[in-house]
């Protein structure tokens, strides 16, 4: 066997070390007598790669794929069996030369390799900060095409929100609360030690957006593809999440948001292996906002042929009504094929993988297809020098229908029920109109016409490559160099038909754009180790250079000559315009890490990093930040050992870190933008400059403990943290008196406090039945202590998708109360303190109230008055979230695993309902014929006296649609304390026993599975599924979660497929 040749090769030279063994600090010598056996885990599975060592000697070996080993040992010698993350076992060699061993172990870790800072393999017990890892196979098992979607509920402290349920849609990820109210909160994504692109296309770079062309998208309409979705789940060996800045301090830039480390699968020496997986899925949308189908279009209860809103008379009883929403959505389908080859020899291993995905969404025309090709090689160049390369190509095509206010969902909800939306074309091939005097711009949007005649397509080609060199000069000295590039190009097209609502005013328009992104990164570091008696120490010193470039070029034209021909050449040349945006940022850093370890129970870590960022003014370009950590494994203290009863392992940890975060590019000088007015030219852009920018600063303290009970049957990991965020770089809307619309400032203080709890219980551990329960508890809250420039509210206009409601960060209640303190301009504590001082508030209009909190009513109309100040009207932050995984293995071959997601509390803005209410389509408008009196006091001058006039003016909404369209305020559409319980995924997998596979040598493993994702949702939310975001992740800050408008969430999906290894 090749494997043993490898071992033999090691035995020939003391200096021959492979990386793993180097970490364990062994060398080998030869011997003659042979002991053999199998090492298995509690579940009877072979432990590949477990080490076997003859105690007190340098003789050792590694178990092969079947967990088998052979080692030379003499009777009376002790064999030490060990595996990372497992409890070691020592067995004396007796008469028998066969020794089978079962290693129990930390249920937490099992065979997941924990990757710490710099991508180095870490022993989790020594870490002073919170990390959590998940196996690639568990991610793959969820059958999510976007691997990151599988992380929600599986990692404590991680919150993930899909923008929508589109095939090929994007997701935003957030670790431990809001770190920046304006800039990105997305954690740094690192693959095999190098950062990769993880963003979503920013629509603001387009010509159409910069020039406010109708149909511009502000990141809150279309859900464009995400770079995250391009990682092949089948290539992931494991994902480790470094949650706090403590862990990420060495990563510098962006590390303040936490780091997600992806370790890809590598080939293993031994016999070549071919594995193939497939999957076939069908998905359906089953939750929709509801509409009334009683009243037709009109005005104030009467027919009005010009009014597209639903305030007309009842439909005559014989009217044929259509369920346009049901008719619109379709069943989605999804096919995935994965193929991988791996193998190699003692000096060279390889893994080649290919994946093909084709997904049809539940919205007509929505389609996503993806091809992945990856090659990974590892080669030993000399005895001490190892090189590995990884090269991957991804190609994908994304056909995405428009969302938001001019999108598929609102279009199909809004379409008149007495018209069949499917008949979207007339006999002449024109768009069907439903109002006699309307035009294509004013008539109700037809969602079918919208998706079939308008188009948006993205084609992305991406190449990721990295080369890594590891030199183990001496057992105490090694060097690692990594060089990586991640380059993508998206070519895209947007087309708006002249007869569509969006395209009408410009006789159709077309925009092509190319989005090019590149990350080049080099990281070099050297490690020195020394052991003096009971104290071991290590020092890492290194440097990193990060170079990023992003370029977007868009070409725009309008006035189509041919209504249906999608080419920029089909636009009036005098209307053709273009825009290019190029961003370059460079960052250089030096870093060092020192670790002192006393007998493995007391460990102190110190790190420091200094960065130089190109985006800061020269005098502020250099900044330093430190971290420190302390670990006490108190159950390993010799004096206390075995004195904790059922507690077999206990650790206390504390850490502190300060991380800097630089500015976006080009912000120290204002830029001028091209003017399209007569004569062209340049004028200053919206954004003011700031020649004295400083880096953002995040200071974090984390305290935690890890406890293992009953030989790790119960494992608890608890972390408490507090983060102070200062000098935020914020684009803040300011007075025009500054000369700009937005200023770029350092300012504002935030504080996030939270706890993460992981509890893993192996409830049953029997030979034929195993039941594991894994609970992840997430709770955090980001408080706003102050906002930059003493403003009351910070918001990103992208989140302002419908009505006068937006995602905001608000100054604390006492600040707001002191500023909004006059009649008609009042901070009303009972309503507005919810969201005050929160970074995840909902800001919006509310009812005008007197100082006692009574709503003020207009004496002439009997309708309530509004407070048109944006004040907090809700807080989107949930009280807590629990992810609960249950995993059953029956008869070793049948595995059932499911993840429940429980959310408690947090407000959601039901934007769909508000939109429908204001146009008379909400079911809540059905009581419109009943007279009623709005509860409030009349604003007649006596409203602040002891005896205000109680409103007695009766209104009949049916006769006065202003009640719905103007008088009712957004505060009524913030649904408070929303809880949900959802089944995120469930998988049942059957692995064919070896017996059934028989003696044939072709098929090694075969398994089949059925799987379901997002199968049910139980909630007190009145709308459909609020698990969407009003903006895509390109909008920074806290994001648009908890704002439900114009998009459908993840559909219910059933899958089946097989995995086979040859």
């Amino acid at each position, binding site marked *: 066997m090749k494997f043993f040749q490898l071992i033999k090769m090691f035995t020939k030279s003391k200096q021959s070390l492979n990386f793993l063994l180097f970490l364990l600090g062994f060398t080998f010598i030869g011997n003659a007598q042979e002991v053999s056996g199998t090492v298995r885990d509690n579940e009877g599975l072979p432990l590949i790669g477990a080490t076997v060592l003859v105690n007190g000697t340098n003789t050792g070996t590694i178990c092969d794929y079947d967990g088998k080993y052979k080692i030379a040992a003499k009777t009376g010698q002790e064999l030490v069996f060990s595996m990372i993350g497992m409890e070691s076992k020592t067995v004396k060699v007796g008469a028998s030369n066969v020794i089978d061993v079962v290693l129990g172990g930390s249920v937490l870790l099992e065979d997941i390799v924990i990757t710490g800072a710099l991508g180095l393999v870490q022993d989790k017990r020594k870490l002073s900060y919170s990390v959590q890892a998940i196996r690639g196979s568990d991610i793959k098992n969820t059958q999510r095409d976007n691997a990151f979607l599988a992380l929600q509920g599986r990692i404590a402290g991680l919150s993930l929100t899909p923008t929508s349920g589109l095939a090929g849609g994007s997701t935003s990820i957030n670790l431990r609360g809001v770190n920046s109210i304006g800039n990105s909160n997305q954690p740094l994504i690192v693959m095999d030690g190098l950062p990769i692109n993880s963003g979503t296309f920013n629509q603001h770079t387009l010509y159409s957006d910069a020039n406010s062309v109708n149909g511009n998208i502000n990141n809150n309409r279309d859900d464009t593809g995400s770079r995250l979705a391009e990682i092949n789940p089948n290539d992931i060996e494991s994902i480790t999440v470094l949650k706090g800045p403590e862990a990420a301090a060495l990563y510098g830039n962006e590390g303040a948001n936490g780091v997600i480390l992806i370790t890809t699968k590598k080939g293993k020496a031994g016999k070549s292996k071919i594995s193939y997986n497939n999957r076939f899925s069908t998905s359906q949308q089953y939750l929709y906002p509801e509409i009334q189908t009683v009243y037709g279009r009109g005005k104030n209860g009467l027919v009005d042929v010009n009014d597209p809103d639903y305030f007309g008379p009842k439909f005559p009883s014989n009217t044929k009504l259509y369920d346009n929403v049901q008719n619109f959505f379709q069943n989605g389908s999804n096919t995935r094929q994965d193929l991988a080859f791996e193998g190699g020899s003692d000096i060279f291993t390889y893994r080649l993988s290919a994946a093909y995905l084709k997904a049809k969404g539940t919205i007509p025309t929505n389609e996503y297809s993806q091809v992945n090709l990856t090659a990974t090689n590892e080669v030993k160049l000399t005895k001490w020098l190892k090189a590995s390369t990884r090269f991957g190509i991804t190609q994908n095509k994304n056909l995405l229908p428009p969302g938001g206010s001019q999108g598929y969902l609102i279009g199909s909800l809004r379409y008149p029920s007495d018209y069949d939306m499917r008949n979207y074309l007339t006999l002449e091939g024109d768009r069907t109109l439903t109002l006699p005097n309307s035009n294509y711009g004013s008539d109700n949007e037809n969602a079918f016409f919208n998706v079939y005649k308008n188009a948006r397509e993205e084609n992305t080609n991406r190449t990721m490559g990295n080369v890594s060199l590891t030199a183990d000069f001496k057992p105490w000295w090694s060097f690692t160099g990594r060089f990586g590039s991640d380059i993508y190009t998206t070519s895209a097209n947007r087309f708006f038909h002249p007869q569509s609502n969006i395209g009408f005013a410009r006789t159709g328009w077309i925009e092509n754009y190319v989005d090019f992104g590149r990350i080049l990164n080099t990281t070099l570091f050297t490690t020195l180790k020394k052991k003096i008696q009971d104290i071991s120490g290590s020092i890492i010193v290194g440097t990193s250079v990060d170079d990023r470039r992003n370029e977007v070029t868009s070409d725009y034209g309008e006035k189509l000559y041919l209504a249906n021909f999608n080419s920029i050449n089909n636009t009036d040349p005098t209307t053709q315009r273009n825009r290019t*945006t190029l961003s370059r*940022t460079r960052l250089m850093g030096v870093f060092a890490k020192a670790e002192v370890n006393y007998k493995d129970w007391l460990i102190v870590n110190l790190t420091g990093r200094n960065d130089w960022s190109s985006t800061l003014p020269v005098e502020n370009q250099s900044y330093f930040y430190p971290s420190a950590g302390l670990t006490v494994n108190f159950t390993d203290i010799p004096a206390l050992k075995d004195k904790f009863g059922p507690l077999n392992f206990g650790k206390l940890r504390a850490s502190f870190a300060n991380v800097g975060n630089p500015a976006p590019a080009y912000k120290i000088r204002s*830029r*001028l933008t091209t003017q*399209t*007015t007569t004569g062209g030219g340049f004028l*200053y852009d919206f954004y003011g400059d700031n020649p004295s920018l400083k880096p953002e600063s995040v200071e974090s303290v984390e305290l935690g403990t890890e406890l293992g009970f009953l030989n790790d049957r119960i494992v608890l990991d608890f972390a408490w943290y507090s983060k102070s965020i200062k000098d935020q770089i914020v684009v803040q809307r300011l007075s025009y008196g*500054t000369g700009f*619309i937005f200023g770029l400032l350092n300012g504002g203080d935030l504080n996030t406090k939270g706890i993460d709890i992981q509890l893993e219980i192996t409830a049953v551990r029997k030979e034929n039945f195993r039941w594991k329960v894994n609970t992840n508890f997430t709770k955090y809250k980001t408080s706003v202590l102050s906002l930059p420039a003493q403003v009351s509210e910070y918001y990103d206009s992208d989140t302002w998708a419908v009505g006068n409601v937006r995602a905001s960060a608000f100054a604390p209640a006492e600040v707001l109360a002191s500023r909004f303190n006059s009649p008609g301009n009042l901070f009303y504590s009972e309503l507005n303190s919810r969201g005050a001082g929160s970074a995840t508030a909902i800001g919006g209009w509310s009812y005008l109230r007197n100082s006692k909190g009574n709503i003020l009513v207009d004496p002439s109309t009997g309708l309530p008055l509004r407070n*048109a100040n944006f004040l907090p009207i809700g807080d989107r932050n949930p009280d807590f979230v629990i992810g609960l995984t249950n995993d059953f293995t029956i008869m070793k071959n049948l595995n059932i695993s499911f993840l429940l997601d429980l959310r408690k509390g947090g407000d959601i803005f039901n934007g769909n309902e508000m939109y429908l209410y204001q146009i008379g389509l909400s079911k809540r408008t059905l009581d419109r014929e009943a007279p009623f009196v709005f509860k409030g006091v009349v604003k007649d001058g006596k409203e602040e006296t002891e005896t205000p006039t109680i409103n007695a003016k009766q209104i009949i909404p049916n006769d006065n649609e202003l009640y719905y369209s103007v008088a009712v305020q957004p505060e009524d559409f913030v649904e408070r304390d929303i809880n949900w319980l959802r089944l995120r995924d469930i998988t049942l997998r059957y692995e064919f026993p070896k017996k059934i596979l028989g003696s044939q040598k072709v098929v090694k493993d075969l398994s089949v599975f059925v799987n379901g994702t997002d199968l049910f949702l139980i909630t007190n939310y009145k709308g459909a599924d609020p698990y969407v975001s009003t903006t895509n992740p390109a909008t920074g800050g806290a994001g648009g979660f908890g704002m439900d408008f114009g998009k459908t969430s993840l559909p219910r999906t059933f899958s089946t497929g097989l995995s086979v290894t040859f």
Partner: protein
Amino acid sequence: MKNKILIKSFFIALLLVFNGCDNYLDVNFDPSFPQTAESSSVLAPVLSQMVRGETFDTRYVGQYIQNWAWITANNVWDLHGYIAGSDSGGEKWRSHYWSIGKNIDLMIEQSSARGQWDYVGVAKAIRAWSWQSTTDVHGELILKQAWEPNRYVFDFDTQDLVYAEVKRLCDDALVDLARTDGTVSEKSLGTGDLVYKGNRAKWIKFVYSVLARNAHHISNKSSYSPDKVIEYVDKSLSSNADNFNVPHTGSNSADANFYGPTRNNLRSNRATEFFVNLLNGTVFGGVTDPRLPLMYTASPDNIYRGIVPVKGDPTNVTNNVMRTPLLWGVSPAVTVAAQIPGKYIFTDKADHPLVTYFELQFMKAEAAFIKGDKNLAYDAFKKGIIAHMEFTKVATADINTYMNSAAVPKTAAELTLSQIMLQKYIALWVTVH
């Protein structure tokens, strides 16, 4: 020994990485958008922004002063209100501080360094005009603290300070525009100057027109000096050829006249009955004004109708022969911009006049009238009417007929202030000053 060499070479490699660090990081300038620009490329868009600020808000100001009104009843602007929580009506403010704003400083800075004193003068003249016209709309302004770096909360200053600042800037502009040293040339200024094509003499006249407004808009103050107004007017625009006309290419929404059909901004506005009555003889002794068919359009039944503010347009029904037309001269039934030619200066390609000879003549007429010099007032009054008629392209014979009709007083003694103001109202319909 070998180890030491290796360690040394490693740290030498590290040092090499950092060699040239300064250059490597020097990429923080935007290659796709300039962060500075020459005045010639800034002036043209600034001229467009001058129009934008005025026209965006004139939609609403025009409702306040009953140039036009909204087709549905009880419109908030017709009611002299505003839209709460909206920036509608804030464009003039925005253009003064932002879209014109610091671009003026950029022009002054760039051109001072190059000896382009003509550009410097033009930049100051535009800022003076902007302070004046912005305070005309908004009253008190941020003056002393405007554009101050690192300031986020601003104090408002009273109008007397703004008026003094206009005067100061005008005086400065006149000095700069008089210079011929440096790189001053008609050709150089003409590259950015879409209005006066580099003619500094006309810019000087423009500065005097700003001074005239500055002196005249305080006609109710004790410090008002009619002589100053008359002096400034006489030094300013001397015919319609000197009008401050900002051109519009009219090829698309971005470069079309704000009031043209492509922008579609006046679709729900209708001319008021008040305006129609000024032209159809109701007010002026039964004399139908020859400007009526050139500025406005009759309903299908050939009768000119305007609407009464706040009441909406009761005629707005498909196929109604009494339906009030759009300001573009067609029925509201026509919805496609390409089918609407437009009318008067409500067309896509129309120049938008920000300051006109006839406005100045009516100012002079007012000033002379207040002063008591009725002959001078009468002369300027007639010049104003004739200049506006010519602007409206009324045939000379029709002008003469009108000037000799009962609509125009026969002698200086018969002239009233009301007549001056009503004729000024007709002439400044749309431009609103």
